């Protein structure tokens, strides 16, 4: 079955440690209104100092109108996505793999990201993003895959903006911490009323 493949590589001017800290704190952000929930299901530090994590995300299931007409049942549920990741301090990499665990016959999107810090360029981080889009629907796999790839490209732009937004918040919090001992930590990535999350660099 022919699927679609996407590949991109970009460097951002932020230290790897900051990028990773932001990776865990990127939701919510102004570009992630389609992400409804985020949960950590599992975490473990291995004996060789790698951090394994599993997150569950819920996203809205936005389909083009032609797909809504063909697959009316698809509207009923959000998309559930598992994101597994490995942080390797030894080689300064974070590798994540995310895929949807429902609506998978309609369309399966597997996304792999690698965030790489390089020793000789400490203020830069390389981000490699790959995706594979496939559909198991007989006779419609091509338009579904095209749609999936187009949506992925658009989401990729949002994801980068979201990450940059989280990085910018962390940098502001850092400036505040160093400048003022009375107001130790700024609440920046807050969602609502009561308990606001704190940010640490």
């Amino acid at each position, binding site marked *: 079955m022919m699927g679609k493949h996407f590949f991109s590589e970009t460097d951002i001017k932020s230290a790897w440690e900051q990028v990773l800290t932001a990776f865990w704190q990127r939701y919510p952000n102004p570009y992630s209104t389609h992400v409804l*929930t985020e*949960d950590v299901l599992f*975490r473990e530090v291995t004996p060789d100092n790698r951090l394994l994590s599993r997150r569950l995300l819920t996203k809205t299931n936005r389909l083009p109108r032609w797909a809504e007409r063909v697959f009316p049942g698809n509207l009923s549920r959000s998309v559930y996505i*598992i994101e597994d990741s*490995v942080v390797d*301090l030894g080689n300064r990499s974070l590798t994540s793999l995310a*895929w949807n665990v429902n609506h998978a016959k309609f369309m399966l999107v*597997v996304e792999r990201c690698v965030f790489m810090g390089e020793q000789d360029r400490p203020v830069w981080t390389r981000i490699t993003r790959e995706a594979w889009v496939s559909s198991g629907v007989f006779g419609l796999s091509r338009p579904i895959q095209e749609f999936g790839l187009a949506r992925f490209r658009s989401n990729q732009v949002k994801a980068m903006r979201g990450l940059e937004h989280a990085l910018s918040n962390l940098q502001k919090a850092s400036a505040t911490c160093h400048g003022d001992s009375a107001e130790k930590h700024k609440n920046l990535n807050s969602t609502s009323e009561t308990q606001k*999350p704190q940010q640490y660099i």
Partner: protein
Amino acid sequence: MNSVGEGCTELKREYDQCFNRWFAEKFLKGDRSADPCSELFHKYHTCVQKAIKEKDIPIEGVEFMGPNREKADS
């Protein structure tokens, strides 16, 4: 950010706060001292697992890094 379990969001926030602090101040600096967040995680985890069962979210038995191991290892 909300948890998939409506009643778990507060527990999630407490855990996230603990984790973010530990991650930046300990893990990234190579400090291998004991994880201070395990109790918070346990409470949060119990709540979320209940919600996952209630909503019938199909995550049971999904292998780490999924069926697409060849992509992860390439």
